[in-house]
């Protein structure tokens, strides 16, 4: 229809150019807000017992880079083992980071040590995937009325920090070939490379943390789509299988079934495989169910992130296409966070049985029913919000 009017000229070209620049500026500002969010976004209010370090303290190669991220350590009065919890390896799996934040704000360690890294890949939190239409943030309201805002990010490192990706990524430690985008995926980069790309260096820093802190149990928190077979599941390295099996049974008794999956030996770069193979740690990965990152989903908004309610998934469930129960037509965030927190608590409770003298006692965490009933906001801390 444009051609027929034949009104193109240097003036219309200038107008178009200006429109493109205005759109680039408006969208650019929005992207930049994700990179340097306000003080209330992603804010952490650690429990009094935690001391703060930076991951860069363990490996200088990421100090002062966008990959550096806070590490919180709480030591109990009694000696015991050390547990590492990673949230936010994939920033589009919101219940994982939220569970880590909740544990950071509530956990009271009486025996052993608890190390929490709530935002493992900070570089995944600064963007969302093109065409996925995810909202940039989601919110919880605390009992005192404070609004806690968290970023919804992407599975991989922002291309601004790591660009370009190769057509094919060759995992350095194993030589396994993967899709090029996996070069920016923290959970394909383990055990990392000291002088590699920034995501590989980040993975290397986690390996250094595990070695230097002599971690006994490392738990990587994740979420998966309802149509993905490894969902509501624990993926355990060979040496962690006994502990994971004990916890899977206990969860089953409590009516919170978690599938138990062995860490595949031929799938390299994943935390549960590489941490377990390269160190003495018991490595486990947890997956809850996140419809907001699924491929079948319909309208993608904050409500979907928080409720997991989606008509398309109801239909997919009726057709037998899902790997999780979906009779209620929802997967609320509170249930998903509760599943992570309860599993971590049980892993800590049972660690003593597989590692003598290495038990870790964590108190202060809400139980599954309490968290599920009252919601996540009821267990997040309040703070004076900035204007």
């Amino acid at each position, binding site marked *: 229809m444009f*051609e027929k009017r034949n009104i*193109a000229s240097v003036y*219309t*070209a200038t107008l178009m150019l200006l429109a493109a620049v205005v759109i680039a500026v408006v969208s650019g500002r929005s992207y930049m807000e994700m990179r340097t969010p306000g003080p209330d976004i992603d804010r952490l209010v650690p429990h009094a017992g935690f001391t703060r370090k930076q991951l860069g303290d363990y490996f200088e190669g990421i100090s002062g880079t966008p990959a550096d991220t806070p590490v919180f350590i709480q030591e109990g009065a009694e000696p015991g083992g050390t547990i590492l919890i990673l949230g936010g390896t994939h920033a589009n799996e919101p219940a994982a980071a939220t569970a880590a934040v909740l544990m950071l704000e509530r956990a009271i360690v009486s025996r052993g040590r608890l190390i929490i890294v709530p935002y493992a890949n900070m570089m995944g939190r600064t963007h969302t995937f093109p065409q996925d239409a995810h909202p940039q943030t989601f919110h919880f309201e605390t009992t005192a009325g404070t609004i806690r805002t968290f970023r919804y990010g992407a599975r991989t490192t922002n291309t*601004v920090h790591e660009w370009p990706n190769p057509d094919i990524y060759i995992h350095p430690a194993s030589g396994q070939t993967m899709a090029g985008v996996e070069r920016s995926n923290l959970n394909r980069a383990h055990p990392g490379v000291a002088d590699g790309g920034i995501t590989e260096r980040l993975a290397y820093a986690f390996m250094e943390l595990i070695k230097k802190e002599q971690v006994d149990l490392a738990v990587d928190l994740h979420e998966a789509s309802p149509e993905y077979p490894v969902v509501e599941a624990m993926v355990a390295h060979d040496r962690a299988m006994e502990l994971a099996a004990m916890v899977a049974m206990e969860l089953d008794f409590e009516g919170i079934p978690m599938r138990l999956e062995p860490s595949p030996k031929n799938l390299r770069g994943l935390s549960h495989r590489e941490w377990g193979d390269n160190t003495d740690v018991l490595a486990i990965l947890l997956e809850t169910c996140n419809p907001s990152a699924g491929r079948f989903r319909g309208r993608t908004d904050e409500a979907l992130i928080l409720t997991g309610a989606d008509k398309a998934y109801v239909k997919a469930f009726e057709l037998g296409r899902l790997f999780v129960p979906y009779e209620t037509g929802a997967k609320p965030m509170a249930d998903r966070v509760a599943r992570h927190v309860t599993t971590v608590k049980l892993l800590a409770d049972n660690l003593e049985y597989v590692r003598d003298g290495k038990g870790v006692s964590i108190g202060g965490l809400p139980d599954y029913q309490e968290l599920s009933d009252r919601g996540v906001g009821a267990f997040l801390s309040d703070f004076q919000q900035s204007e």
Partner: protein
Amino acid sequence: MYLTWIYWAIVVFIIVLVVRSLYREKSLREQYVAAMVLIPLLLRAFFIK
């Protein structure tokens, strides 16, 4: 890191070509298409997205 700057130079070069085309086009529709193509290129050139 070299690759990043090589790609950046390519992006800037394409921006120049697209702007040149934008002003040479006689069709309003083609001008519109060129303007839309510019948006992601500008975001990439400034390392915003």
